[in-house]
């Protein structure tokens, strides 16, 4: 891991500390008595606070997860170099794309 990746990893971790705390609290609370699409949409539809929060959350995940996986690939599978990094960039973009799609889908529904 380079110093720049370390910085990105730890910075995204700090963002996620807050985001995950909120997300976990919300999930554990909201799942009481079961969870329906209607209940989810009631919270997310047209809610700009929800939108902003989760877009930032998804961006942080898209940075944090691939860098973490990079360490594992290098150390446990001994996969290093440009091909590996390229694959991880694709994974990061895919995570952001899928995540943003889900966030907007629940906002615009």
């Amino acid at each position, binding site marked *: *891991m*380079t*110093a*720049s990746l*370390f*910085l990105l990893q*730890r910075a995204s971790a700090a963002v996620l500390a807050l985001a995950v705390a909120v997300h976990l609290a919300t999930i554990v609370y909201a799942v009481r008595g079961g969870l329906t699409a209607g209940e989810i949409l009631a919270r997310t539809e047209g809610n700009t606070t929800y939108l902003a929060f989760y877009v930032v959350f998804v961006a942080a995940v898209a940075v944090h997860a691939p860098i973490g996986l990079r360490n594992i690939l290098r*150390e446990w599978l001994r996969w290093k170099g440009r091909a590996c990094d390229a694959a991880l960039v694709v994974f990061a973009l895919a995570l952001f794309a899928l995540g943003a799609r889900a966030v907007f889908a629940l906002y615009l529904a």
Partner: protein
Amino acid sequence: MLHVKVWRGGETGRFQPFAVPRRPNQTVLDVVTEIQREQDPTLSYRFACRVGMCGSCAMVVNGRPRWTCRTRVADAVASDSALQLEPLRNLKVVKDLAVDMASLFDKWEAARGFFEPGDAIPDDFASVKPESDERQAADEGIECIGCGICHSACDVVAWDADYLGPAALNRAWTLVNDVRDRGQAERLDAVSAGSGCHACHTHMSCTTYCPKAIAPTYSIAGLKRAAAKRALLRRR
């Protein structure tokens, strides 16, 4: 009687059993010395000061890397258990309990764990206040005597032959905090390269076992921060 199993051989070998009378205040070094002097003169091991200053007697005692002169038998084993002695890990075994420390010091050098005065002769003595943040940070790690216990304890050193290791990185951190040193850029390059400080995953074994109560994990964390800060400033 105390039952002792001692590693004999090199990288491959076997544990040889011995029996030694239990004595009051006996240290593990006393036990090894008694075996070598009274029972088997072919046993190879190292010691020097025997009072916990030099670190030469470091070896693995019942799975833990320790100084044998500062390990009481009564503390290391329960009354009905055996003592198992092995050489330090992650260093090439020369014979029996003696290891080749060369790779430890090679990594020390690779981490640029040496003072770099620079070419320009300074005009005056450097004024280094002992209570300054840098000096306090350096002082926390400066007592290292290079005994190799942290190197032996580290899992990452075991997995990655190139990993510089806690001893080398700790010394590098003390020099990063030495305001007189003129080799900071090269040192940060050396410690933040591939198998440098970022390979540390805070297992904390080094900090757990250091007999000088140094905490290399935190020195390595300091290097991570220093390298990150430099990366951040470079972008601007």
